[in-house]
């Protein structure tokens, strides 16, 4: 179970496992002052899946700008990286 607040976002990374995926994502987050609250990852049949819960309270950029940066990174390393406001998941899965 993941802690959430209004500035919480969810990053999911899916694709072929390679060296340094977490390092490259978290380097960007550190630079933009985005705090990682939780990480889980699994590798099933060589498909890497990571779910990261981040707190953007002190972030120097908006959620839209961070999403754009992560999209570019995703294309560079050949993975799908999605950043989404956590409100979506709360709305769909909690009464």
């Amino acid at each position: 179970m993941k802690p959430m607040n209004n500035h919480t976002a969810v990053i999911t990374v899916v694709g072929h496992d390679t060296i340094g995926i977490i390092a490259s994502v978290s380097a960007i987050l550190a630079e933009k002052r985005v705090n990682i609250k939780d990480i889980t990852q699994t590798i099933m049949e060589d498909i890497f899946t990571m779910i990261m819960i981040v707190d953007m309270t002190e972030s120097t950029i908006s959620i839209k700008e961070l999403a754009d940066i992560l999209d570019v990174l995703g294309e560079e390393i050949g993975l799908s990286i999605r950043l989404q406001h956590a409100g979506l998941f709360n709305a769909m899965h909690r009464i």
Partner: protein
Amino acid sequence: MITDFEILETIQMFQEQHLDVRTITMGINLMDCATSSAEETCKRIYDKITRQAERLVSVGEDISREYRVPIIHKRISVTPISIVAASSGTKDYTCFARAMDAAAKACGVNFIGGFSALVQKGYTDSDRYLIESIPESLATTDFVCSSLNLATSRSGINMDAVRDMGRIIKQTAELTKDRDAIGCAKLVVFANAPEDNPFMAGAFLGPGEPECVINVGISGPGVIKSALETVRGEDLGVVAETIKKSAFKITRVGELVAREASSRLGVPFGIIDLSLAPTPVVGDSIARILEEFGLESCGAWGTTAALAMLNDAVKKGGTMASSFVGGLSGAFIPVSEDEGMIAAATKGALTLEKLEAMTCVCSVGLDMIAIPGDTPATTISGIIADEMAIGTFNNKTTAVRIIPMPGKGVGDFVEYGGLLGSAPIMSVNPASCADFINRGGRIPAPIHSMRN
């Protein structure tokens, strides 16, 4: 507090099952644009729409980006033009359609609805002018949609209007025949038209609505279909429960988007329309959901029962997810806009008569159906009359959006591409109803209209 499973399930819904929010529709009151000059009225219409909806598209795109929820359409609905234009002194209403079209283009939306009239009990002079202006208006604009309310359960059916609309639909087809009669795809007639419907072609802002309002239409046939694939062979109680749970989640996405759009635009939130809206994309079809129930093809016996249950379960799940549900709220069964319906109609498993039966248990009606161009206007009126009767006498919304394709017959296709899709031309019962239609007058309101 969200689990990994829920996060991955959500992402799958968006990435693989085509979940999206179909439309954010801004309703804009135009009553204060009425003047005694057509030119001045057009100017006010344009100014008011572009002022109110200036940020609609950019706000929609921002929300889409932040939540990663595709929002397919941003649209506008306005006060029925027959009311707004009544005192303008002109009989040719095409200028108002052009003003709406120009405003829609300036705002960046892809449809604007409200070239409309509410004539369930009779015509005002303005209603007549509007109706006669429909063919030319739809032929000379790109984004304007037109709708008419011909009947209600409280007032009965205006059969003069039913008769006239058969002719108007034929004229609209004729004027746009070089584009596969696309004018008819932008024209719909209703019984019991909802005043807060966000979906085109039938969206307009009814006289009881606020100054400006945000209404949202959801989608999600692919999500329901995928959920049902996990319960193959289980009994129908399990099927109903599975649909309800999926509908809840889909509706919550719509509610979230509606609330965000409303707060960012400073415009009140109106309703969520719980309609399952298909697209011609594979995996986004209502017909395929019905087939997942266990039917060889949509249109087989059992289709109406399956559709009734689907429609009901979607509403039950959806009403739990949002307190403000309105619009059409039910499964749509357009033929050209649904890959499975196109396939069923093409192979002859789905007929016009079966579609009529299906409209008794779902929203909205005979939708995006192509018929031979030589179908008489009175027969089109007869099709409309039957559909209006189903709505009026069963206290529900029904509609007809039908395309009599000039120069084409059964076996041919109309091709629009995009979300309007393509449709095989379906055969129409050749027996005449001309004498019935030409009687005119009104079909009285049903006995159960007297509730006071």
